[in-house]
């Protein structure tokens, strides 16, 4: 340990001592801060979940035509999210994402009003996926429907537009 009597030091030496201390303190600070940054950066990136949760699903078989009576609907799995396939009263088949545009609840088909309804906050959509009433800011995402096969045995193939 250096035990010099500060008062006895000439002014120049005292200043030099002070500069040296400041320099070393700065060096240490830079060192510690860079270490912290070098650790914080990968950890921060690690905490952000990777994108691969999003499915690459292009199309799925939602149901058989036979399984859907007119004026009814069924929920199916489209990747990791629910979809809803609706058979209208006049036999038309349509499919939408069943994820409500308001707060991600799953919508259901109301056969009495022939509407899609979200039970969470009472949002309703028509069978074109457009908002009729309630808080949803946008309509439901509409899927492309193709029938593969003949008549009632046909598969309802749903794909992203």
């Amino acid at each position: 340990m250096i035990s010099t009597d500060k008062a006895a030091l000439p002014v120049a030496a005292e200043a030099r001592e002070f500069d040296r201390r400041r320099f070393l303190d700065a060096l240490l600070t830079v060192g510690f801060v860079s270490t912290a940054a070098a650790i914080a950066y990968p950890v921060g990136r690690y905490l952000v979940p990777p994108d691969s949760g999003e499915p690459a699903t292009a199309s799925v078989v939602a149901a058989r035509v036979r399984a859907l009576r007119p004026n009814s609907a069924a929920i199916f799995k489209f990747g990791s999210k629910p979809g809803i396939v609706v058979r209208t009263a006049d036999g038309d088949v349509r499919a939408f994402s069943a994820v409500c545009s308001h707060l991600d609840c799953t919508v259901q088909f109301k056969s009495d009003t022939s509407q899609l309804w979200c039970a969470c906050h009472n949002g309703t959509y028509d069978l074109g996926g457009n908002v009729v009433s309630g808080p949803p800011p946008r309509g439901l995402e509409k899927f492309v429907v193709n029938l593969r096969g003949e008549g009632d045995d046909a598969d309802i193939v749903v794909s992203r537009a």
Partner: protein
Amino acid sequence: MNVIDWVDQRLDLTEVRHFVAEKGVPVHAQKIWYYLGGMTLFLFGVQVFTGILLLLYYRPSAAEAYESVQFIVTQVQFGWLIRNVHSWSANLLIGLAFAHLFSVFFLKSYRKPRELTWVSGMLLLFLMLGFGFSGYLLPWNELSFFATKVGTGIAGAVPLIGHFSLRLLRGGDDVTGATLSRFYGLHVAILPAIATALVALHLLLVQRQGMSVPPGVEKALKPGARLPQMPFFPNYILRDVLAWYVVIAVLAALAAFYPWELGTKADPFAVVPPGIRPEWYFLAMFHTLKLVPSHVLGIEGERLGVVAFAVAALFLVLVPFLDRRASRGESSRLFTVLAAGGLIYLVTFTIIGHYAK
């Protein structure tokens, strides 16, 4: 007014100030060994930190464990880094803990009044081995699966309570998903809770009693003379931090250049792959058990080996109470020879075990 003043006015930090100003470390030729404990402690911190991060993505089930680790190392950003650091740090930690153990052994730092520090340290070493054993299974790969079968099988050789402890460890008669759940609970909850308490006790004892001065150094002092002291804050702590930086550098280099293998997923119906062996820190024990003949004097060899290791472990824990000469401050050549013998045995058997077919 700065933050420290603000806290001081409310909590009165006089004692802390006093402690910080007074704490000193004796300066002598053997003080290099003082760093090992701090480095081990630092790695314990690294394990807690990276372990918590791994928990965010890991899934403890036979169906998903392997895939989740695969996900961590391939999909999650810097997931490979976190996992490699955790695996390498575990191994460095155990290596350093052994080095710490032997340095304390040779310097006789366990002698009165530090018996309890030694005992808590030995218990911590056993805990660390438990961490290693339970953590090894968690990725649920082929090697760890069969190594766990063998390891828990050894527990089954313990006389009287063997079968019971085997079932307790495995959560059934076989190594299954139930074993994985158990080892997971052990690894992330039970062992950390005990380890935290023991580390706190260990450090408290070290604080309370200060650093031990080796008997040789003490004897060389002139009567009435005192060893020079170095202030802990900031002189010694900065040296400690320097040692930690060395650890970080080694760890980062290992993690970046020698990724820890994931292997293939465990399949309980697959044949055992050749060259199945435990982690290096169990190799000496593993190889010794291989060498013991199947029957010695009518007793099952395996059983005899396990009992011998238990006795050796108990002996190690009790060293400060058995080494009376060191307690009186006399030199105890016998225990130095025992420590050297133990060290030579561990090193040679680990090396032989590594190369043995």
